[in-house]
């Protein structure tokens, strides 16, 4: 099971630790140097940054009001004057709705991962460092959550709790916590058995100090990289919940919900109706590429 320590990973970490001690210009400047040589990751970062700026400054960028519709200009096509991306089923400007929709979609894609990162790292490091019964208790509970496919788990929890942003965030956090616990636990277990932890203990460091200085310093990187890879999944899942009518409620603009309300419009304005999904796709693929780039730059295995 997960408690058996992979010796190869141990050796790897030991080498990394030794290199870290010997390097003078620091770990992070090395990571930055490697990232600078990775054009694909930089390109995706640029797209994400632009998107973030646009949705943060939405009131200044968006050409119209996201809630103001008009019955006489419903479902206009791409390239309509004044409405470059057309209008939706209630005659609201698509471009404006997409810009404002990014706010909630990004929020719901990132916030659950942050929550899960904090909770999962705490529990995972605790399980890995304490071992024994505590490890047993925490890991067996995560096993239960692993018995559900993640989409099903998210739908089950938010389906029972009912629609709403808060419930969706709660459900998604519960989906990702067990996954982060597993990663955190296995990395912590392999770090815990390294010589420098023994040395710190022998020199009288308290358990708290060992965790804070020696363990966290070595496990946060890999867990962080893993968490960034979850953002893409989280965005797809949260939009999926809204698509099912479980996340955001109308008239709030959100990409998944917009896809849902525009579903019947595919026979009238097919290319306008699929725009919100394209936004989800671009964002999620960029987050995935950046996560892959980070993994390589930070030299994290697995």
């Amino acid at each position: 099971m997960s408690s058996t320590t992979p010796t190869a990973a141990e050796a790897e970490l030991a080498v990394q630790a030794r290199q870290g001690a010997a390097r003078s210009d620091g770990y992070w400047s090395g990571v930055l140097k490697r990232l600078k040589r990775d054009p694909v990751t930089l390109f995706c970062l640029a797209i994400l940054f632009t998107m973030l700026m646009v949705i943060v400054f939405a009131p200044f960028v968006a050409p119209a009001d996201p809630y103001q519709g008009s019955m006489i200009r419903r479902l206009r096509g791409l390239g309509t004057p004044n409405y470059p991306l057309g209008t939706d089923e209630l005659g609201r400007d698509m471009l404006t709705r997409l810009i404002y929709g990014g706010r909630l979609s990004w929020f719901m894609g990132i916030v659950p991962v942050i929550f899960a990162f904090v909770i999962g790292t705490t529990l995972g490091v605790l399980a890995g460092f304490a071992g024994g019964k505590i490890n047993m208790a925490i890991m067996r509970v995560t096993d239960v959550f692993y018995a559900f496919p993640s989409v099903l788990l998210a739908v089950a929890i938010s389906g029972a709790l009912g629609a709403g942003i808060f419930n969706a965030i709660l459900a998604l956090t519960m989906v990702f916590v067990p996954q982060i616990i597993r990663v955190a636990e296995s990395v912590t277990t392999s770090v815990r058995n390294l010589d420098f932890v023994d040395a710190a203990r022998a020199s009288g460091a308290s358990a708290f100090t060992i965790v804070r200085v020696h363990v966290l310093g070595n496990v946060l990187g890999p867990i962080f990289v893993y968490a960034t890879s979850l953002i893409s999944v989280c965005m797809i899942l949260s939009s999926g919940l809204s698509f099912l009518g479980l996340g955001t409620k109308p008239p709030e603009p959100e990409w998944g919900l917009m896809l849902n309300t525009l579903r019947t419009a595919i026979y009238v304005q097919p290319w306008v109706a699929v725009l919100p999904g394209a936004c989800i796709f671009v964002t999620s693929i960029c987050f995935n590429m950046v996560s892959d780039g980070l993994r390589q730059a930070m030299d994290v295995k697995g």
Partner: protein
Amino acid sequence: MILYLVRRILYAVPIALAVGFFCFMLVQIAPGDPINAIVPPDAPGDVVEQVRRDYGLDKPLPVQFGLWLMKVVQGDLGRSLATGRPVWSDLQTAIGNTLTLAVCAALLGFIIGCILGGLAGTFRGTILDRVATTFAVAGVSVPHYWLGMVMVVIFSVQLNWLPAMGAGPGGSSDWSWNWEHMQHLVLPAITLSVIPMGIVTRTVRGIVSEIMNQEFVTALRGKGLRRFDVFLHVVKNAAPNALAIMGLQLGYLMGGSILVETVFSWPGTGLLLNSAIFQRDLPVLQGTILVLAMFFVALNLAVDLMQTALDPRIKRA
């Protein structure tokens, strides 16, 4: 080996119980009195009390869980609030349809993923590798419900080649293997296959490139074996892990097909769940999730056992 077998099967029992408990709790965490999940809201007060006693809802939670479990084990998942029919009877046809869809999608994704991943792993660092990896990343990043809509726009609305809705002519939900029905399967199966395609490509690429770097492959080549024979050796080494991934993916698709089924109105468990959510039909929600999760637990067990049986390198005790 036998010991491992017994231990692994026994280990699945507490997991299954805990999954059952989770599903039981779903109705408890739902806002409102769980009694509302059984009686219509306009029932008179004394009837409500009577039902509460009949169902044991006045007893403490652990006792309720026990009572509920006894019924579930006997195949009684309660009655739907919307239709009044037993949940299990609706669930049976739905599971069959979802299984058809998921198996087709998993097979398709597995075959394409193995080809792409195998090529990428063998010719690592080439253009071929780049293309396959890009496909894989796109496959795991695409919101598949959106991909389904795009497919409908292209193949149903614009080209008018394939039907967009349902599982058969006239919206029938009875499945049979003829073209009338199968043409309804094409778009949802392709849409759903994109996820396992991406994951299998990534995994197989990793496995193959690791095997290709091992000394025995160099030795086989040095011995003068033809490319095809070397390929057979690689397949034999990669198969157990690849099959395990495929088995788990089937489980993910069974549970994860809800979004695609909603897009295509495919009459499976996903559509059942979707309407249950809309009507707040908690017994249906609970029953469907319980059965799907149990299926996943059983599949996990089967994959573990299969992997142990197939791969002589794994020695478990």
